[in-house]
């Protein structure tokens, strides 16, 4: 180590002649700059994209939700079309080759026989004649979203034939079509319910977190009381209280309200705790010192900070609502026909003897599981991405 002799070798005052560049020491690469300057939502997206499973789940859910926009077009039959000759018909498989020859997608017809011993309807595929399916065709009439009449379908049953990809129910209604229509109710009830919860959570969590003191205490106790009710029995009770003479649409709204009214507690808790902790952050203090009012602090600084987190929590709460509706309808306390949800369809599967003979009645289980699973994955990914400035963890 060399020591500098202060008296003799003191360097002269030196000023560089080149133009001043404040970033000469730490120059950001373009990638770094892009990353540092990116707005929050873009960071969230980048982080979310890394979560493969969540992206795939999001895509699947998007497909599901897009499908409910055009349910009428996608379903081969109308929701209510009955086929008295094909009650409890089994699923018809799609074939491509008939007797070694390529025909394109087609189905076989049925031979029908009633087993007099156990009174089981037995259908056997009749492989003598192929019935080719029609695509982008005219079929059952419908009213698009209950308003515009139409007949155009993505796939139609063959001329003078039937196409029950997933079998039929006790009135000879096509299960696939009913599943597609059921998605509309089952999926929207989750979104509507979470909207109600979300608003309630923002309100109660917001005032509890902002005002604190006795208001906070009262709301906290209220949440505790609501949380100590087991949800399903309480839902059942509330659903049973809905007047019997209400129209199915009102029942639908009522059930949505019931689901939303009980689910907000968890969300409200996170709103409150986030508000309490964010209020103490340096940037909130800084904004306050700069003279920002409470409205601006909450709206501009606090809200964007935990909004993403809240959306992630809300996503994780949606499956609970969908399952709640399914459970209620399954028990016969929820939605009533003609409104059809997956739970209403499952109501038919309550009788184990029917399920035993005609197992395809259980099929609505499949989309329920897929939707719940994908919502969980999506919510997980969103939660990880919600705080893009937080690195590390897992």
């Amino acid at each position, binding site marked *: 180590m060399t020591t500098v002799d202060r008296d003799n070798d003191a360097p002269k005052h030196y000023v560089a002649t080149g133009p001043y560049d404040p970033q000469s020491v730490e120059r950001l690469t373009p990638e770094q700059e892009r990353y540092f300057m990116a707005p929050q939502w873009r960071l969230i997206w980048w982080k979310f994209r890394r979560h493969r499973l969540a992206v795939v789940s999001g895509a699947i859910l998007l497909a599901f939700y897009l499908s409910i926009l055009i349910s009428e077009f996608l379903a081969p039959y109308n929701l209510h079309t009955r086929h008295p000759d094909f009650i409890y018909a089994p699923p018809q498989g799609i074939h491509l080759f008939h007797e070694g020859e390529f025909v394109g997608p087609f189905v076989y017809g049925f031979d029908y026989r009633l087993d007099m011993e156990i009174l089981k309807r037995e259908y056997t595929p009749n492989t003598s004649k192929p019935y080719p399916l029609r695509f982008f065709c005219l079929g059952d009439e419908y009213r698009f979203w209950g308003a515009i009449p139409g007949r155009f379908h993505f796939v139609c049953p063959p001329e003078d034939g039937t196409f029950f990809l997933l079998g039929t129910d006790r009135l000879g209604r096509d299960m696939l079509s009913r599943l597609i229509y059921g998605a509309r109710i089952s999926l929207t009830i989750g979104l509507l319910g979470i909207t109600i919860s979300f608003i309630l959570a923002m309100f109660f969590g917001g005032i509890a977190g902002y005002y604190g003191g006795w208001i906070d205490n009262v709301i906290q*106790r*209220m949440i*505790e*009381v609501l*949380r*100590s*009710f*087991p*949800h*399903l*029995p*309480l839902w*059942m*009770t*509330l659903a*049973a*209280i809905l*007047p019997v003479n209400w129209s199915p649409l009102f029942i639908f709204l009522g059930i949505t309200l019931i689901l939303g009214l009980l689910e907000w507690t968890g969300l409200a808790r996170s709103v409150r705790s986030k508000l309490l902790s964010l209020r103490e952050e340096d940037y909130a203090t800084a904004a306050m010192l700069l003279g920002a009012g409470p409205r601006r602090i909450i709206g501009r600084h606090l809200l964007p900070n935990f909004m993403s987190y809240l959306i992630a929590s809300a996503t994780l709460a949606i*499956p609970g609502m969908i*399952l709640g509706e*399914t*459970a209620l309808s*399954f*028990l*016969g*306390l929820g939605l009533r026909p003609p409104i059809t949800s997956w739970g209403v369809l*499952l109501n038919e*599967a*309550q009788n*184990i003897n029917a*399920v*035993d003979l005609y*197992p395809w009645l*259980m099929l609505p*289980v499949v989309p*329920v*599981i897929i939707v*719940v*699973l994908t919502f*969980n*994955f999506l919510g997980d990914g969103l939660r990880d991405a919600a705080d893009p400035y937080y690195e590390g963890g*897992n």
Partner: protein
Amino acid sequence: MIRYVIQRLLIMIPTLIAISAIVFILIQLPPGDYLDSYIAELQSQGEKVDPKKIKFLREQYGFDKPLIEQYFVWAIGMLQGDFGYSFEYGLPVTDVVGDRVFLTFLVSVTTIAFAWIVSFPIGVYSATHQYSWGDYGLTFLGFLGLATPNFLLALVLLYFANVVFGTSIGGLMDPEYIDQPWSFDKVLSVLEHLWIPVVVIGTAGTAEMIRRVRANLLDELQKQYVITARAKGLAPTKVILKYPLRVALNFFVSDVGSLLPGVISGSAIVSVVLSLPTTGPMLLESLRSQDMYLAGSFLMLLATLTVIGVLISDLALAALDPRIRLEGGITR
């Protein structure tokens, strides 16, 4: 510790009062009281209704009194073990309920024990073998368990048991023991049937617990003291067993509080599918026939069960974790 216990017990009282008030409002919500529907039913069967008898009944059950008073009569009656009168069965609610509450309790407790026993080793394995194939597989199974609604699982199991084994797995005991006094054989029979509802109801909770054990243990494993212990050359199993596991265990106990409402909810609907002699099917039945006293009692019992469960888990946590009992707070 004693101060904490007393404090915790005192908090429970207003909670229970609030719950009972909500339940009472729910009982009162359907238009008309039970006597109205009772009279309507008698009249529809063409029977003459004696106005004197109606008046007597009305006084007997206090329907002529203001609502607040009715509430107090009901609430105080409950404290004395009188849950009101089921109009559907024409019996006091206590007689109708019978040992259903006990069986619900039995199913719930066993389910939680099951969730614990299964989720703990799996969660620990997942955390210590993070990102291994075993971890991925178990995580996926956990997600599947979480996503499958338990009543659908019950339905599917029922179907497969019927098709593959040709037996019905419903019920909680062999038919010959139903309505029999408790005996050793009956207990055995119950134990034999118990595992199916327990597995069905417990799946979601177990899956949830696995994820939390994993997350908690992972958090703990990154802490400085673990690194220090490792650096000092402690054996890997001892590093995990000695401290992080014990810290992770704390939340395990406290989580009964969040697990229990789910389990009780789940058992309500699963027992309908599997036709268990617990509170679920009877609650549904009473709701369908608008027998609101019976339904209200069930709701009240289930909520009380939950509150007590949470209380026990809080106390156990306080016993385990000195931070909580010394601060006297109920921090989670």
